[in-house]
């Protein structure tokens, strides 16, 4: 019986700004439910301070995960995928950790394969966490 020598890594995506994750989620859900103006957002999210809502929205706009048109907000469909991969399990990949660390082109390919249309934008919100899987065999 032969054993495979291929290195394996676990790739997980985390929010780059962990303190903003609740704000991202709240903003996206609110806009998806039709609260897409400044006034309506401030009214339906009293749990959040204006400062943090502005900063969260600023990050989403900068990452092109939110769009603004005539004072009306919309959330990019990519954002759903981002929320899912952050909440989901780590990806098991047949790669060496050194291949992934600081390798944005490869991360972009992986994100595109998952279905993200704007992976560069996604990487402004997410950061990868790479963990090598130790094989006991």
């Amino acid at each position, binding site marked *: 019986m032969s054993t495979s020598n291929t290195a394996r890594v676990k790739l997980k995506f985390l929010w780059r700004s962990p303190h903003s994750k609740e704000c991202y*989620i709240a903003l996206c859900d609110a806009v998806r*439910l039709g609260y897409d103006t400044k006034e309506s957002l401030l009214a339906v999210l009293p749990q959040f*301070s204006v400062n943090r809502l502005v900063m969260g929205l600023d990050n989403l706009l900068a990452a092109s995960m939110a769009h603004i048109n005539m004072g009306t907000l919309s959330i990019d469909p990519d954002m759903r995928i981002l929320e899912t991969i952050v909440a989901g399990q780590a990806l098991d990949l047949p790669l060496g950790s050194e291949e992934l660390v600081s390798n944005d082109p490869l991360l972009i390919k992986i994100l595109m394969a998952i279905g993200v249309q704007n992976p560069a934008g996604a990487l402004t919100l997410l950061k990868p966490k790479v963990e090598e899987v130790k094989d006991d065999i």
Partner: protein
Amino acid sequence: MTSKEPFDPSKLISSDVSESSDSPGSPDLIDHIDDWLEYLVKLVETTDDFKTRKKYERQIKYVVRFRCGANCNVSHNTLLAKYYSGADDKGGSSDGAGAGAGARASGEAAQLGLYDSMAIHATTPVQSCYLEDTYAYSQIQKALACENLFFLQGPPGTGKTTAIVEIILQTLRSKPGARILITSETHVAVDNALDRLTGHLSLTEMDLVMRYPRFSVATLENPGAFKVQALHRANAAWNQAMEVAPQLTERLWQKLERGRVKDDGSDELPRWLVRNLADSHQIIGVTCNQLDHFMDNDSDMFDLAIVDECSKATMPEWLMALTVARKCVLVGDHKQLPPTFCQEESEALSELDETQEKLIRDGVIERIFDNFPKSMKGTLLKQYRMLPEIGLFISRHFYGNGLDHSRTKGNGLFEHFAWLTYNSKNYYVPPERGNERKTLINHREIKIIVDHLGVMCEQISEAKHASVVGDRADDFGGVMINDYGESIELPKSEKRERYFREGKRLSVAVITPYRAQCKELRRTLDKLDFSAHLTIEVDTVDAFQGRQADVVFFSFVRTTGPAKFYADDRRMNVAISRARDCVYLVGSIDYISSKRLPALTALAGRPVLSRAG
């Protein structure tokens, strides 16, 4: 300086700092901060408890931030560095213009419109009590007029909390948008300040206040203040959201972190919510160590931080508040007890060299206070707590006769400052000699205290009865009709005793320097019920600082051996000055007078009320 000139690092430092009077070899503030860092790192390495380790890590984070100058107002760094090293050479500590370059720079920046100046010139007090005590108000005016840093010394009962409330109210009056942090090493001090403050605020202004995480005391002077607790604020926010957008709120309630239930059954709010709530509130009350729960890189800094009981806080603790505020008012009294160190902390301290250990143990508050110029420090001198007999003792022995006294009338029944002593011949506490672990429990003193509490209850019960009779007499113009139909005028003593009405309970503090005695006292008193007439608190002297009671029993415990604990004037100051009306010194007067320490000798001269065999 042009680019061709040689680099002189000393020019980077404020001219005030370079002029400091310290000798070349003496440690400066940076050395002291480094000592603290060394000590905190040792504690992190040795502490097993996760929460305690987190606390030390937070302190390291803030101390490093301050050391690097990454705090809110760099003037604090230059001022502390300067006055840590010595007083201003030009004018000494009496210099009125000694706010230094830091203040000047801040003032100039304010003039340029870079930010609002925090110097406030308040001519009229908000609280009417200051119309009479004009000296105290002058000290508050100095604190308000200060741009960066002020130290207000408040001896026992001199109205520190009232002063804090006045400073906040004046700041709000002058700068309605100012963000204010009320902090202390203890929850009780924060609770007191917020409780009193909220009594002066309108309903709209109350919405600006938050107590994080909650009040530690069960009863408040202003019960309405309970709604400023973070949990209430969080519930209000969720309910408001639920009313406007139920579907969204339900979804977020499911998706977002909700906090956890702690071991004691109380709810802990998730940090994301606490950070948002803190951003949305203007006045926040929190202990120094919990400050980091809601401060992150995106948080707004505070315009004013008030650190109550600062001399009881360790340097990292008050530095945490200083790091996040533009102006800081330190309120405390270095003549009372310095920070307490637990056994683990003491062990880590003993690994440092002797000078480092002494500096860390004693704190630097006294040193900085002595060196501060007059414009940056003030002292409250009129005490409103103790009856003159107790107050005079405290003033004479611990404040160089500097205190004035306000109260003249007590409860009428218990106004002693005297001994309940006993014959300690052949009664040794602790019984052990040499290096054995000592049992510092004195059962004789416990019995004396219990007996006296019983007598007090009887006297109060009689006084209450007399009060009922007196009330009836009042209905007839202070005259009673006896069984024979004759009219009798009530004696003066009975009129006086009407302090004790039905439902009135006298507060009693039973305090002792030793934990073992404290435990034993609690165990004994828990079995007895004095609750009809007395509310009794039992604690160590160190833990009781910041609180007061009508009657204080001080159990000395020892009848033999060294009086190391009593030799510290600060501890005796705290012990005696907790009392409003009455101090019972419970101990062996022979042992205490044999110690030949000034404060103890004076105490031994107090009258003896009873002597047990």
